[in-house]
């Protein structure tokens, strides 16, 4: 399949899923009305009669949620692909190797230590602070795992995964400790945040998250060629004229920025970073020049669909979105493990 066609199919599917998703819920709104209302709002179409209740539901509740899902999905998809490139391993998933847990820990610490700015989570500055905290947590954990898992200049898969288990446990314990010590108000904030999912979406959260996702989505694909060279080994990449350390810093910075921000708003959504690039590689081949942008697109699509399922499967109860992604992602992870069993020598 031509690569251009894949991009077109992904974009059209995302648009369609988005419109359908916005129409679904306790008050169903036909897809056609959703489309027209959006075009109306954008001034590209004039509607004779606007259903104000529908307008509020779409623009205050469902559209921000859709946007948040798209941003978080794109962030998890592209950062998964990029981190796998740097770690030279398709199993390097931000959730599994502890990067998301590091982000969670820092986010909870920000709430727990109650920076004076953060009296309530509802102000924009609070969200930014939370996102920055999570970004820092993700970045530090990524560097730590990278250093631990390297042996004689090469990342060792088994060490990487085992270190991930340890970091997950450690970050989990510290998160628990902070929660235990938190005051009642802080606890309310933490719990509210941990339940996260996409439910808390407002235009404010979307605005806060947007730069943290858009910057990596625009800049990371430029490292596609470098990440390809990385697959030959760090030394070979150096022989090909790359500044290996600069690329590592750049990719880890950009991808943890995306993961951290996503985690800071929605909590950990596992397996997205594994599932999405894997599917893209099956369809388009492994050239990171395409895997990176296409993973952002597919990530957005998968999370949009997963959110649709989580909202409608046992409505009115909402399933955590991580349940859906893990249900699909975990078997894929096992599949890769079994396929590569000999190579991994765990």
């Amino acid at each position, binding site marked *: 399949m031509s690569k251009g066609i894949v991009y077109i199919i992904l974009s059209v599917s995302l648009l369609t899923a988005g419109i359908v998703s916005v129409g679904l819920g306790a008050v169903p709104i036909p897809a056609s009305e959703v489309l027209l209302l959006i075009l109306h709002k954008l001034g590209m179409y004039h509607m004779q009669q606007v259903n104000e209740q529908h307008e509020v539901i779409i623009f205050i509740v469902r559209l921000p949620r859709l946007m948040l899902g798209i941003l978080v999905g794109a962030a998890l998809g592209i950062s998964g692909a990029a981190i796998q490139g740097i770690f030279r391993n398709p199993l390097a998933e931000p959730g599994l190797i502890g990067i998301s847990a590091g982000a969670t820990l820092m986010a909870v610490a920000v709430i727990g230590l109650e920076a004076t700015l953060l009296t309530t989570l509802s102000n924009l500055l609070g969200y930014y602070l939370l996102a920055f905290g999570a970004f820092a947590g993700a970045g530090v954990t990524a560097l730590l795992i990278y250093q631990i898992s390297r042996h004689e200049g090469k990342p060792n898969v088994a060490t990487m995964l085992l270190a991930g288990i340890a970091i997950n446990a450690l970050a989990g314990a510290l998160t628990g400790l902070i929660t235990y010590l938190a005051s009642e108000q802080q606890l309310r904030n933490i719990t509210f945040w941990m339940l996260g999912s996409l439910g808390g979406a407002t235009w404010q959260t979307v605005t806060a998250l947007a730069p943290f996702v858009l910057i990596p989505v625009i800049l990371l694909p430029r490292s596609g060629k470098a990440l390809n060279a990385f*697959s030959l080994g760090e*030394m070979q990449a150096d*022989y090909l*004229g790359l500044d290996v350390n600069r690329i590592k810093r750049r990719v880890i910075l950009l991808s943890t920025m995306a993961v951290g921000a996503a985690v800071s708003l929605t909590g950990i959504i596992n397996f997205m970073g594994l599932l999405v690039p894997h599917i893209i590689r099956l369809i388009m081949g492994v050239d990171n020049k395409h895997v990176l942008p296409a993973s952002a697109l597919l990530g957005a699509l998968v999370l949009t669909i997963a959110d649709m399922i989580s909202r409608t499967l046992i409505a009115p109860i909402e399933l955590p979105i991580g349940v859906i992604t893990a249900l699909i992602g975990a078997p894929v992870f096992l599949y890769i493990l079994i396929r590569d069993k000999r190579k991994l020598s765990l």
Partner: protein
Amino acid sequence: MLTVNNVTYQIGQAKLLKDISFSIKSGEMVAVLGANGAGKSTLLKLIAGANRPASGSISLHGRPLHHYSSAELAHIRTVLSQQNVVSLPFEAKEIVMMGRYPHYKNNPTAKDNDIVHTVMEATGVYSLADRSYPTLSGGEQQRVQLARALAQVWEQPNALLLMDEPVAGMDILYQQQTLSILKSMAQKRFMVISILHDMNLAAQYADRIIMLKHGRKWYDGTPAEVLNQKSVYEIFEIESDVFTNPATLKQLIMPHEIIFEQNKTPLTT
């Protein structure tokens, strides 16, 4: 011109290379021989710029190696390493195109595509172009990596080709073809340094042989000068007969059979 001057390299207390000096001119085809652990790959990595010598200096075209940026070096020297594990299942042609990465920013030019095509033809991997790298045999993978390394400097005479066991895993036809490609590159004014294990291949194709032992340079000269019973025994600790092929006037080394003596050292129970 490559100049290696009094180079020493050590890791911890272990001295891997001691006082190595030699220089190589454009157009020379040099084979480096030595037993396992003699320091051949270590020397190649120093010349490649991956590691810096503890003392001594290496310069390329009159300029110290460490004054070149990684990007500059990529245009004037290429390296084929001993171990080539690729972490993603790229197609063979994608791997070869990586050799052209230093030359283009986003999309390969027509020239890059031409070079990739030519090099893949020369190394006999053009028919494997669309195959996924992990599905290739060891020898085929090695040829793809060779093609990548050659593509990197294909149109830059005077460039330095560093080959760590370029024929590892190849069948006899491709061993000969590979050395013949390298030889033809040397004739086009490239500098070629190859680590080889097969002394007969070295005798056949190299203009010059450098022999290493325990991190020191023991012999340095033309095959006729350095390949003889005495040197082969000193370097590899094997008895052999060295003939001169009357048709080609090249040296032929025939190692003597070694009798394995099972109970030489009594087993302790």
